[in-house]
């Protein structure tokens, strides 16, 4: 066979070709040899000599296909308004589309050589709007589909679509008799015959214009109407909970349906339409039920609610607000009625229960949605920093929040040696919970003050249960709040070990100098700045101990230059052996208690007045410590003198040594008055917090202004708030006061031309 162009008789060749084409598009039998020969025919027609018959071939083919489709339409016309229309159409379409695709292959020479050349460039499509140029060629496959669209679909699509919609309606009712393949095939035929000329390259919204216009639009309209009715029917017959359940099921079904029948671009549109009809239109109904669901802890319903409202823009806000309000109420309820003795435990543990419960709900039911996490946080912050409700606006200041103090106390009970006997893991977990609560606390500096005081007490009196646990807790605080926050706590820790070393050195010194203190002497020498301690009153130590004090002071001044020691005898303790009782007792007591007792070495009884003169204690300390000794029955107060108030000590009350003292245990500790927090101490703590805050704010202001040189009042306030929020939240008035102070001290000044601007004074 030669590929050389030659003379061809168009009519003869075309007639042969036409027979084969007819066989192809009706999918009847075409012999292999004949099929092969037709390729040659197409080729020879296209390259015929002297003039190629390309255009003629093209228009004859078009003519033929048009007539073929028209005849098919005449056949189908009898099925109009008949439910068999779908089936018949589908069969025809499958056959035809298959045939056309074969035909496309048969004409591949024509497609490649002539159609490609005459195809419009992209630029022409974009700018020309030339559209349907007469004589403009498209590939035979496309041509076939176009003919189908024009001659078949456009003519019968209304009936067709009505039937498709009917079939889907039946499907929605749960009837399985719907011929899925047929319906799907019909819908897909809309996509297949899409006019490629309407496509704008790079704009997918133009790719399916025919499908969208003729099928999708009526389909969505129909769906909307269907679900509108459906929703109203459901609402009348069932509760909101059931409604949600049914809606979720329907949405799911519809999703599956979309995948069965539709083109992928329609999935989202369909579910949006359903969602609009079933949820958005009835959002207020759902919202009305939120509160009840949250209050009754109906988790499944809440999960459904979340799932339904999530796609709505802003749909979850209402639910989140309801949840927040409810957590707040429940939290406040949980910490409302606490007995003062157990308030610290109740507060922390009840709060942990509430937080954990809702944390779990948020992560399981609400999918850890940011909106709900922040609702939880907001609610917890409000509860934990609750200071009571101002009964009247403009009422005097609310009392400071008790939470930091309670939390510190809770930590103290966990870290102290105690009889409660929690296991190490239990303590660890409880401490972790404490940190969780701690993060919500606004007045972190108040917590720090109380924590430091408790830590000091535990370290000085060796009350800590485990040093590892102590250190672990400090590290957790450091993680939560930074180095600055725990700096002092770390230094306290270091001091304890430094003191141990020092004691060892001191003992070596004693041996080398051949000295002895006469008592088992140990000392903790602490850095004044790091510990929350004051030397509040001078104390005379019992004479036996004075020697130790002197020797140690000499030793210390040799060890260190330029340091001044101050003894805090009110914090020291001693182990004392009682020799005057039937049994021997070893008692650990405070040095102050000891110094009271030692005055009974010579006499057995003394009046209060005499005793106070001997000890030179102030009234408060004297009464407290004497009372503590009377309370534990080591001393007896004669009630003869003051019968009116037997418990009250007066100057004339005679104090007597109890020689018949007995106790089941032979080794024990008498706790002094100092172990309890006095209200004054608490007040003092708050006062010192207040003082520290002022210093912190002033430092912050100076730092900010120094870097900005000139700053507006409002900006300054905001910057200060930003800098301080990790420790506490200052009131605007205190910031203003600090600004005033700094202006007085000439760190800054008001700028001359503006009323609300400050500048730095270098």
């Amino acid at each position, binding site marked *: 066979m030669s590929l050389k162009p030659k003379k061809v008789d168009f009519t003869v060749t075309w007639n042969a070709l036409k027979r084969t084409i007819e066989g192809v598009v009706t999918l009847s039998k075409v012999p292999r040899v004949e099929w092969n020969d037709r390729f040659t025919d197409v080729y020879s027609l296209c390259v015929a000599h002297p003039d190629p018959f390309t255009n003629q071939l093209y228009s004859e083919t078009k003519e033929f296909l048009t007539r073929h489709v028209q005849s098919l339409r005449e056949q189908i016309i009898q099925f109009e308004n008949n439910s068999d229309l779908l089936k018949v159409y589908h069969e025809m379409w499958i056959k035809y589309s298959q045939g056309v695709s074969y035909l496309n292959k048969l004409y591949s020479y024509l497609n490649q050589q002539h159609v490609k050349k005459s195809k419009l460039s992209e630029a022409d499509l974009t700018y020309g709007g030339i559209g349907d140029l007469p004589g403009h060629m498209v590939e035979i496959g496309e041509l076939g589909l176009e003919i189908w669209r024009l001659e078949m679909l456009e003519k019968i699509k209304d009936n067709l679509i009505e039937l498709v919609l009917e079939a889907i309606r039946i499907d929605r009712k749960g009837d399985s008799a719907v011929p899925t393949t047929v319906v799907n095939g019909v819908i897909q035929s809309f996509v297949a015959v899409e006019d490629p000329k309407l496509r704008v390259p790079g704009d997918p919204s133009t790719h399916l214009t025919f499908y969208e216009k003729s099928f999708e639009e009526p389909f969505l309209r129909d769906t909307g109407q269907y679900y509108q009715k459906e929703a109203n029917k459901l609402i009348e017959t069932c509760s909101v909970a059931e409604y949600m359940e049914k809606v979720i099921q329907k949405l799911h079904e519809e999703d599956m349906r979309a995948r069965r029948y539709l083109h992928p671009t329609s999935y989202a549109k369909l579910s949006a339409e359903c969602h609009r009809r079933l949820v958005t239109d009835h959002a207020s109904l759902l919202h009305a039920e939120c509160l009840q669901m949250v209050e009754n802890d109906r988790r499944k319903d809440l999960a459904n609610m979340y799932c339904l409202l999530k796609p709505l823009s802003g749909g979850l806000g209402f639910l989140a607000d309801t949840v927040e309000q409810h957590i707040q109420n429940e939290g406040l309820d949980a910490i409302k009625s606490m007995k003062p003795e157990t308030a610290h435990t109740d507060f922390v543990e009840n709060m942990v229960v509430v937080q954990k419960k809702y944390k779990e709900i948020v992560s399981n039911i609400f999918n850890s949605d940011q909106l709900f996490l922040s609702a939880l946080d907001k609610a917890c912050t409000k509860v934990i920093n609750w200071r009571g409700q101002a009964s009247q606006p403009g009422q005097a200041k609310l009392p400071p929040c008790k939470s930091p103090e309670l939390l510190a106390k809770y930590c103290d009970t966990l870290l102290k040696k105690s009889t409660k006997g929690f296991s190490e893991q239990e303590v660890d977990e409880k401490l972790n919970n404490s940190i969780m609560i701690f993060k919500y606390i606004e007045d972190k500096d108040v917590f720090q003050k109380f924590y430091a005081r408790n830590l000091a007490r535990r370290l000085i009196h060796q009350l800590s249960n485990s040093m590892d646990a102590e250190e672990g807790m400090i590290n957790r605080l450091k993680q939560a709040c930074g180095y600055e926050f725990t700096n002092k706590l770390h230094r306290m820790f*270091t001091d304890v070990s*430094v003191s141990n070393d020092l004691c060892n050195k001191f003992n070596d010194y004693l041996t080398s100098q051949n000295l002895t203190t006469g008592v088992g002497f*140990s000392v903790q*020498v602490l*850095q004044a700045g790091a510990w929350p301690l004051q030397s509040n009153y001078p104390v005379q130590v019992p004479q036996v101990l004075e020697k130790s004090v002197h020797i140690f002071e000499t030793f210390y001044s040799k060890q*260190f*230059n*330029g340091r001044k020691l101050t003894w805090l005898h009110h914090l020291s303790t001693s182990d004392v052996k009682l020799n005057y009782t039937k049994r021997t007792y070893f008692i650990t007591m405070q040095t102050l208690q000891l110094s009271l*007792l030692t005055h009974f070495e010579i006499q057995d009884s003394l009046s209060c007045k005499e005793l106070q003169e001997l000890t030179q204690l102030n009234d408060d300390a004297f009464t407290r410590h004497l009372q503590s000794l009377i309370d534990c029955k080591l001393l007896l107060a004669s009630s003869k003198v003051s019968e009116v108030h037997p418990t009250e000590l007066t100057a004339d009350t005679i104090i007597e040594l109890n020689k018949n003292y007995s106790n089941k245990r032979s080794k024990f500790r008498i706790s002094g008055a100092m172990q309890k927090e006095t209200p004054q101490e608490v007040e003092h703590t708050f006062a010192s917090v207040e003082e520290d805050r002022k210093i912190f704010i002033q430092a912050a202001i100076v730092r900010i202004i120094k870097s900005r040189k000139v700053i507006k009042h409002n900006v300054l306030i905001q910057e200060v708030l930003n800098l301080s929020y990790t420790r506490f939240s200052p009131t605007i008035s205190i910031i203003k006061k600090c600004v005033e102070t700094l202006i007085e001290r000439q760190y800054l000044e008001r700028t001359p031309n503006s009323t609300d601007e400050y500048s730095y004074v270098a």
Partner: protein
Amino acid sequence: MKFKIKSWNSVAIWKWLANDDKCGICRAPFDGCCSDCKIPGDDCPLVWGVCSHCFHMHCIMKWLAAQQNQICPMCRQDWALKSDLP
């Protein structure tokens, strides 16, 4: 003896014996440390000059290293460490 003291755990605090509460060079309190240190105490000690002025050791060393004349930054007398401390 009615009472026999077996052992005594005493507590004391220490402060620098300084004539001022802040260092004249870095203006940080003596209770704290100089601007280069993190932890006050033994690692950041104070030193006293014969002129009776007192500084963080690190601060005065830096000052002296930067000066040609070894003088006290407070009183401009010659700087020398005081050996006999109070």
